[in-house]
């Protein structure tokens, strides 16, 4: 049975598609604009920030030198136009890949939400029992993801074209991002058929995304312009348009072709299975609990395990890759002493390589701390769902105090955050040591990152207070966290007053190992963090349990 017969012979399979499409678009009427504006808005930000960061051609060539290194190519792109680096070439080489990941993630979430999640929760059963064809949901979610990526492409095109860039290249750039999104929407349409659970479907599609990014990374690192490995990757195809350097359109056809093939596969698989079933049956688990599970600490650890593993792997690889750029950065300092001064390295020759690395790379550690801060707030906020879905009531209906239940959940968050910080520092140090041969830095960076633990716990404490006050009121914690991350990362570009810049949460503690250790701020932030954590627990004891 060919795909064509599935679709044409079974027009009745598509009954109700229009309604469901309208319904899904309506459900996503806030989500789609937010994604599109965020993705396009990044370009607006880069357009403003790049001329400040790279004021002259010399500084651009300094950047190009880093991108010529295998570690630079691994993270960014195939490196077209590096010999005469422009902002346009930089967009395609360094930014396109990340935007493509964003649109791919967006598409994966959208498609799985409207297909497998609907089936898993039983909502699809309710709808399928009406006058609705078996392919209506899948078709609606594919139309939805096409529409969403079209909006992303359009906004992105407008954002780029409104800058000082060639219009055809801007279109190729925007189409590249949108088509990668479409390919991964189609990947998710397939994985949603394979497994019974929406989380697994998202995970499988996400793994494919990670794989294709790594494939093009390895290919691009092997040789400038990429090797055959780069050509195995939809993200690679988008970069191979060479937009803003020497534009060619045909690699985008590969994206279109792959998306079409995957959609056909999804329809074929969808036609072969029952509603709610996967192609791969879910495995059975343990009939009895392991002794380690039998405490609120054990349960929270277990519930946090998957997320902790995911974050560990992500931060570890990011750390290795970022650290591996260390050599390039030190090299560029040798060429540009004025850049070195910005990082507090007054005289290159006066310092050993290890010292230069310690000084210059210290500023990077804070970004890992920010990521772990996000993790900690997410981890504490898990309690909201536990409560609204009635599980907290089940637990607190047994012989366990609210102090203990919430306190041990917070303890798990604190331990996980510590592990993630240590892993970040270790992997970053290993990356630096691997690229420079300076092994002495590994231990320094591993321990130095712990200086941020009080700040991370402070944000966990804010989230705990928000939860203790009432279920659902967490927006202000996110506002504070995201605000201090954005101001911390881009503060120098905004010309913030020193009084603000120095008192941002992540700037309160000394930037080890480059800066000198200062006990007072670390102790002060720790006391505030512990106070917030304790306060949140006490507040939770005093309120009604909801749901």
């Amino acid at each position, binding site marked *: 049975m060919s795909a064509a017969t599935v679709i044409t012979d079974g027009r009745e399979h598509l009954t109700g598609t229009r309604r469901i499409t309208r319904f899904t678009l309506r459900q996503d009427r806030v989500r789609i604009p937010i994604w599109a504006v965020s993705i396009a808005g990044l370009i607006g930000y880069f357009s403003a920030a790049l001329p400040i960061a790279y004021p002259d051609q010399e500084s651009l060539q300094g950047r190009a030198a880093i991108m010529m290194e295998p570690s630079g190519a691994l993270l960014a792109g195939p490196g077209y136009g590096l010999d005469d680096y422009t902002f346009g070439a930089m967009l395609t080489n360094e930014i396109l890949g990340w935007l493509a990941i964003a649109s791919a993630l967006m598409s994966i979430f959208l498609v799985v939400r409207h297909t497998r999640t609907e089936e*898993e929760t039983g909502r699809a059963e309710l709808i399928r029992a009406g006058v609705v064809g078996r392919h209506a949901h899948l078709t609606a979610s594919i139309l939805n993801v096409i529409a969403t990526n079209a909006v992303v492409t359009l906004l992105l095109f407008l954002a780029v074209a409104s800058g000082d860039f060639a219009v055809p290249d801007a279109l190729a750039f925007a189409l590249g991002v949108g088509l990668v999104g479409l390919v991964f929407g189609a990947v998710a349409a397939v994985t949603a058929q394979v497994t*019974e*659970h929406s989380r697994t479907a998202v995970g499988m599609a996400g793994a494919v995304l990670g794989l294709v990014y790594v494939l093009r990374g390895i290919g691009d690192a092997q040789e400038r312009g990429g090797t055959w490995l780069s050509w195995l990757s939809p993200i690679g195809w988008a970069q191979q348009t060479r937009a803003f350097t020497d534009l060619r359109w045909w690699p985008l056809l590969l994206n279109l072709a792959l998306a079409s093939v995957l959609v056909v596969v999804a329809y074929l698989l969808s036609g072969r299975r029952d509603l709610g079933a996967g192609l791969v049956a*879910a495995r*059975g*688990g*343990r*009939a*009895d*609990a*392991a002794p380690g*599970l*039998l*405490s*609120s600490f054990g*349960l929270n650890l*277990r*519930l946090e395990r*998957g997320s902790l593993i995911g974050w560990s792997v992500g931060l570890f690889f990011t750390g290795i890759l970022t650290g591996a750029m260390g050599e390039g950065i030190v090299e560029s300092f040798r060429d540009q002493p004025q850049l070195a001064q910005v990082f507090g390295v007054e005289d290159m020759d006066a310092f050993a390589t290890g010292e230069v690395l310690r000084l210059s790379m210290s500023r990077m550690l804070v970004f890992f701390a920010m990521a772990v801060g996000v993790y900690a707030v997410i981890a504490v906020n898990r309690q909201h769902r536990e409560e609204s*879905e*009635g*599980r907290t*009531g*089940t*637990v*607190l*209906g*047994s*012989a*366990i*105090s*609210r102090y203990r239940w919430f306190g041990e959940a917070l303890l798990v968050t604190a331990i996980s955050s510590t592990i993630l910080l240590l892993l970040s520092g270790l992997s970053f140090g290993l990356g630096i040591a691997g690229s420079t041969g300076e092994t002495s830095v590994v231990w320094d960076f591993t321990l130095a990152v712990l200086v941020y633990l009080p700040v991370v716990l402070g944000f966990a404490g804010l989230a705990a207070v928000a939860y203790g006050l009432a279920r659902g009121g967490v927006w202000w914690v996110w506002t504070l966290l995201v605000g201090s991350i954005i101001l911390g990362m881009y503060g120098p570009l905004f010309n913030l007053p020193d009084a603000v810049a120095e008192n941002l949460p992540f700037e309160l503690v000394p930037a080890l190992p480059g800066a000198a250790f200062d006990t007072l701020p670390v102790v002060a932030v720790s006391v505030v963090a512990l106070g917030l954590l304790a306060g949140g627990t006490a507040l939770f004891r005093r309120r*009604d*349990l909801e749901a």
Partner: protein
Amino acid sequence: MSPVIDVRSLSKSFGPVRALDGLDLVVEPGEVHGFLGPNGAGKSTTIRVILGLLKADAGSVTLLGADPWADAVALHRRLAYVPGEVNLWPKLTGGEAIDFIASLRGGVDPALKAELLDRFDLDPTKKARSYSKGNRQKVALVAAMASDVELLILDEPTSGLDPLMELVFQDYITRAKAMGRTVLLSSHILAEVEKLCDRITIIREGRAVQTGTLSELRHLTRTAVEVITAGDATAVATVSGVHDVTREGDRVRFSADDDALSPAVALLAAQGITSLVSTPPTLEELFMHHYGTETVTAGSEA
């Protein structure tokens, strides 16, 4: 002996909504107490206050001789609770969830757990996310029944169970009672409460409207009969214990106490019965007959 649960004039509001309005509930040691009311009457709210999950606005609540808001942990060690809507951790298997929930109040008897899993026909190796509502309810029931506790608080525990499983459930409640345990069983199914409970409290709109033993509430358990006979069926009104006789064309409807059923049917049989339908009273009828129709509308909307 002092009551296991002693609730006096309990009030609880959620914003402008008055969920409980001066509710009284007394559960004596060793009894199976039915807590009956339509959806939205305040049964679950009452139970959650009794457990100390919600704080009472006014009135007094005593659970096993202490204040559940202040002493929740010590008290919960002595009871097991099955919520009306059981949600489990999607990543855990049913067996793990049972062990975890039971461990929080002192652990589970493995032999009893195995027996209950067998009787309730529950596969403990499946991840909780794949369980139906009935199976999630079984997990909470097994965890509760396999625990060594004085008091079982069950909030509509059979709403997801099929009739066969309801029988298993009733069997275990009977056993719990024989072991001297106290049970608070909330339900909106009169027949279930009738079968299991020694005493019943009926609530509507946050207030107890009736409480007593089954025989005290006997009038609530009349059987409704609809009959067509060759002769004049309204003659059945002469039998003592037959009430509310009405005629509509050939059809005669009446309600009868249990003792009156035999003489009533004998009288009708003598006339030659063409058709006879008897139904146990539903909660809706009970509310309609005893508390007026407006109550039912208000109760079902809430």
